[in-house]
């Protein structure tokens, strides 16, 4: 029943929320969709409070992950066209309205010297012949979501031939009537003028209709990093399988090129590097091709890589990639890209003298591109928009220092603990948020040490983590477990209590505390702690089981039974709890109640010896005839004897034999048991002597406890 160091489980709704968001994000980063391919909706107002769904016939229902809407009579034909801005491509669409005079309109632009110049916040009210009620428009600046529509206030007029009134309620509270507005025209309403001034727009223009598909993405890409990324310790292999540390310090820039002998673009690219040797050297560059031949793939082998290089007379050093190298580079690439797609071959990585990744080229890289990128290898640690943005633009900030907490976590997860620690070391002095993230990863590093039994190192990580962020219940919790494992009960208790101070509903910590208190022989304290854990997580079968054991240890068998039963309700597949419950029943004399649980336990785990032992006694020797079943007892006892032959299993076999009426066999078995027992255990000898007498009298054995 001991507890291994681990992250807390989903103990609160916050944890569950964070966990599910994290999982969701991971799936999205790997290319899943979430409420994707949804089509825009459009509802037609059919008279005030009832709408009709015109989504499909509107022509606006693109499945675009649309975000924003900008309404404007772009083509000047008297109806509202629409800009849509989308997440998928094209990121902007202009939709032309085809109403084209099937309904009349008027539109107004406001101007004022008394309130804000454009009259934002002003309200225009309009009545027209044939239109019931008043039409009201307020001039908004920013509504919907992240959208701003035109400042022209557009009124549809249906069949109305005449506008009967135009009134403006200006933001200073003035109501103003405007005369002179007619249908199918645009007007400027200047505050205080009282007269609508007709605007003579350019007139309608004709624009050709065509649905634009999203531009197709290619797999080839140049990625110049906005901020260089420090690579982890890497190594490669020579063609005769000698491991070499990857050392970048000798060159201004190293291009690590991942290639395969079966990949034609790779060969062309290598030939280009060969040809460009002088230019590359002049630029201070070297190319290190590392072949992936034979890695997880049987198309080619390492020898073919060497053959290819010889044929090319490749002028720089070259060798073989390793799975470890690829794994680390993959993790580094995931740190760069918000969406993870696997890297193709060839992929090249440009690395500076300090081992910082500067650029990634998916697919072949042109020599000119490479030389250009190498010429501006950065000097500092901070980033640069100009080098990394694919299209020119201006920036008032610089990309920040790269934070390595996430990368450390990923390295840790992939089993590169040393690299994870190295990244964490780089994080000192990062802003608050980052040091808290580092603290989190340090706890996980500690957990990783704890799992390999390196308790001192684990403890060191937890302590280091608490220095970065003292409010970490998880670190205190895990420290508590470390001390618990060392049986330093007081320290364990102290740290677990600290964790609980920070997070009172930390159920795992209550559970850990209970076990520590058991260790301290403080049974009442332990019971209270178990109950606290259950208060926050009432459906936890494991907690109920442990509480029941503690209760049973204190003699409260009714309480124990209650919690064993609950435990099974939430964890019906736990053989151990099933066994515990049946033992408790038997102790209470409720032998019949024990049977189904023993059956269930053995169904789940047929060779569970203690459950089998209990069941054999009941089937062979219960005082309750309804529970006895000699044949089945015999089956179980014979199965048991095949695994273990000792006085006890022989004693059980004899009882089963007697129950089936085979008293001679029972006597022979008993004799063997007595012989095996020798003089070691007088208690079992006396039991065996007693049963021997019964069998001689053709009487089966009846066990007092069952």
């Amino acid at each position: 029943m001991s507890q291994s160091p681990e992250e807390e489980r989903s103990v609160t709704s916050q944890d569950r929320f964070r966990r599910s968001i994290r999982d969701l994000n991971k799936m999205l980063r790997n290319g899943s969709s979430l409420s994707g391919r949804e089509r825009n909706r459009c509802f037609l107002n059919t008279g005030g409070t009832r709408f009709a769904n015109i989504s499909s016939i509107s022509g606006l229902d693109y499945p675009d992950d649309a975000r924003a809407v900008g309404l404007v009579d772009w083509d000047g034909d008297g109806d509202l066209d629409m800009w849509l801005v989308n997440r998928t491509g094209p990121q902007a669409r202009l939709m032309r309205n085809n109403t084209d005079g099937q309904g009349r309109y008027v539109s107004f632009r406001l101007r004022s010297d008394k309130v804000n110049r454009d009259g934002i916040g002003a309200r225009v009210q309009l009545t027209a012949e044939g239109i019931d009620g008043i039409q009201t428009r307020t001039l908004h600046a920013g509504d919907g979501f992240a959208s701003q529509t035109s400042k022209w206030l557009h009124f549809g007029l249906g069949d109305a031939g005449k506008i009967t009134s135009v009134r403006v309620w200006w933001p200073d509270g003035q109501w103003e009537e405007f005369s002179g507005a007619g249908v199918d025209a645009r007007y400027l309403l200047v505050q205080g003028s009282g007269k609508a001034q007709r605007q003579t727009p350019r007139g309608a223009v004709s624009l050709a209709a065509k649905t634009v598909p999203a531009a197709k993405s290619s797999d080839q890409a140049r990625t110049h990093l906005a901020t260089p990324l420090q690579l982890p310790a890497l190594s490669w292999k020579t063609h005769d399988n000698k491991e070499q540390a990857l050392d970048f310090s000798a060159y201004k820039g190293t291009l690590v090129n991942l290639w395969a002998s079966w990949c034609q673009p790779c060969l062309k690219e290598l030939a280009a590097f060969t040809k460009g040797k002088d230019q590359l050297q002049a630029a201070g560059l070297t190319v290190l091709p590392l072949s992936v031949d034979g890695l997880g793939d049987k198309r080619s082998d390492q020898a073919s890589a060497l053959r290819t290089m010889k044929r090319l007379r490749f002028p720089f050093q070259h060798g073989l990639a390793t799975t470890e190298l690829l794994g680390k580079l993959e993790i580094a690439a995931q740190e760069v890209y918000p969406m993870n797609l696997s890297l193709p071959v060839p992929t090249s990585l440009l690395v500076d003298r300090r081992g910082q990744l500067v650029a990634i080229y998916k697919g072949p890289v042109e020599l000119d591109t490479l030389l250009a990128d190498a010429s501006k290898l950065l000097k500092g640690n901070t980033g640069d928009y100009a080098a990394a943005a694919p299209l020119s633009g201006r920036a008032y900030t610089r990309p920040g220092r790269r934070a390595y907490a996430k990368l450390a976590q990923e390295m840790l997860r992939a089993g590169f603990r040393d690299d994870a620690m190295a990244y964490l070391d780089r994080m000192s002095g990062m802003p608050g948020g980052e040091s808290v993230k580092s603290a989190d990863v340090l706890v996980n590093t500690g957990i990783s040490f704890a799992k390999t039994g390196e308790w001192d190192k684990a403890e060191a990580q937890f302590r280091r983590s608490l220095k970065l962020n003292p409010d970490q219940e998880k670190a205190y919790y895990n420290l508590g477990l470390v001390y618990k494992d060392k049986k330093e009960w007081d320290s364990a208790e102290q740290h677990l209590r600290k964790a609980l101070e920070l997070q009172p509903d930390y159920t795992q910590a209550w559970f850990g505390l209970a076990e520590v208190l058991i260790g301290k022989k403080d049974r009442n304290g332990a019971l209270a702690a178990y109950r606290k854990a259950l208060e926050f997580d009432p459906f936890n079968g494991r907690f109920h089981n442990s509480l029941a054991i503690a209760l049973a240890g204190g003699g409260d068998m009714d309480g124990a039974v209650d919690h064993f039963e609950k435990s099974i309700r939430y964890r019906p597949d736990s053989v151990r709890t099933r066994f515990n419950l049946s033992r408790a029943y038997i102790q209470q004399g409720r032998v019949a109640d024990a049977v189904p649980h023993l059956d269930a336990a053995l169904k789940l785990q047929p060779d569970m010896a203690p459950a089998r032992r209990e069941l054999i006694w009941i089937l062979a020797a219960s005082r309750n005839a309804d529970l006895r079943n000699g044949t089945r007892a015999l089956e179980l006892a014979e199965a048991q004897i095949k695994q273990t032959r000792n006085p006890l299993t022989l004693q059980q076999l004899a009882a089963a034999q007697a129950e089936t009426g085979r008293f001679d066999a029972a006597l022979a078995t008993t004799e063997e048991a007595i012989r095996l027992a020798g003089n070691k255990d007088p208690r079992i000898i006396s039991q065996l002597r007693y049963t021997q007498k019964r069998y001689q009298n053709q009487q089966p054995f009846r066990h007092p406890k069952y």
Partner: protein
Amino acid sequence: MEVSKTGTPEKTVARILVFCLASLLFSPVLAFQNTEKLPGALDFDPKSIDNPHADGWNTEVLSEDAKKQLKKLVHILDHPNAMKADVFKGLLDPEFSTGPVRPDGLENVYEGGGIVVRRPKSLNGGQTYKGAEGLLQAMKALAAPYATAPEARAAVKLFRIKMEDGSFTTKSYVETHADLDDGSLQQNALWRCRWRVPQPGKKPKLMGISLEAYEETRVTNPKGMLFSEVTEAVLGANPSFKQQIAYGVNHWLTRLDGMLGLDFNAYQGLAVGDANGDGLDDVYICQNGGLPNRLYLQNPDGTATDVSERAGVDWLELTRSALFLDLDNDGDQDLVVAAKPQLLFLENDGRARFTLRNRISAGDDVYSITAADYDKDRDLDLYICNYRDQNDLSDVIPTPIPYHNANNGGRNRLLNNLGNWKFEDGTAAAGLDEQNTRFTFAASWEDFDNDGDLDLYVANDFGHNNLYRNDGGRFRDIAPEAGLTDSSFGMGVTWADVNRDGHMDVYVSNMFSAAGSRVTTQEKFKPNQNQASRARYQRLAKGNSLFLNNGDGSFKDISDEAAVTMGRWSWSSNFADLNNDGWEDIMVANGYITSYLTADL
């Protein structure tokens, strides 16, 4: 397999990429992951999340199967002239019967601006159809208006399931659409279907369909639909269109460094305004981190020219929203750009040349911004929607607490215009710090009580929205009294007078989730919680809301009777009279993340 020597480099790389899925990357990385497994959160099995068979909601399994069956049924409409009954094999219970799925006696309930809406007098009555042949007859009657169309499109959204004894019922939106010679037609139906509960491993069989709603909308227009796309005609000549705008964000996510501020979810907005004062509106398109924002100026012929660089507005920082505003009242459109991490204030010289006048920090996670002269001092002030604050440390969003009414998001700011490009944080002074740490996506000003000053509606994710009533420049959140808390995932807001009574009504973008609607209406969903609490969860998934202004300071939720809830995962919703009939219609931009994998979570 051979790699073609003649293939273009791109194609060859693409093919190699496929090989590499097996060879280069997957195997080594997987091997490492197996060497050490950390517990808990770090373990991850996608199937455990999106597999309805695994999550314990057996109604979800049935829904999934019933939806597949329904899809099979309605997709015979894809080819309305070649419908055969053999599609129904394995679909129908022997007892199957239905009334008409296109009711008799449709009548025009609306006609205007080239659009006709027809609804039945009564949903009940009419012939009874039995068995597969009967269903074929009923479906043929449904498809009758599509007789001249070579193909139609049908879609099903199953949003409710209820278990009964031996059977279960589902409710689904069924929509069909086809282009016709003189326009296009759409059928919108709500089907209540009865199913027999199948043996394990078998598909449910349909016992009957009853119609709960039906309408047909038709646009008569030689151009086909109400709108046609003209993007290429307008933007196509600009290099930035082909190099940048034409690509979706998924393209950039796999080729740009995330350190550029590239945002996976791409919440980009836009601003329309006349940037160069020529009387024609122009458009400013906000762009993701690392990509320059674009200003396209409209030319007299309706095309538009990219002037971003010359205009000085091609900011590379992650930009979600921007506004054209005359901030100095000099008669031209200045520009406010929410280019992370600050707001940029750019002065227009009148000819679309902009100068950066000020930068202001107004929250770490700004989404929408909206302007008004709330204090009537004749200049425009800004309200900044800030979703969360930086001090939160999780990768994604802070845990909203509690989920259905979270109050631990970012602090929105009211920036008071002091003139001369100076602004001060007037939030607290104006009383707007009340209920002001929600997860705000959007806000909109409106004088809802017709008292001559602008009030403010704020749409918040994870719970209550705010309606701040303006009382002489001091605000008070009266959303609860007004009936406008609309506790859901608020993402956008738009005001209009939908019924022309002189009082402004409000429509709020939320999330419609068919799965959420199904699950939260099950009896076993949160069985320990009371009805009110369960209703709150049901509300979360219900969708968009339309509130009618009663004119007395209160609002009436008419979302259901107005039939405007199903807006899907909605972002911007905007009122506009789209067919010039004098009534304000609603456009809903929606959808969250469409990615490479077709499976949706």
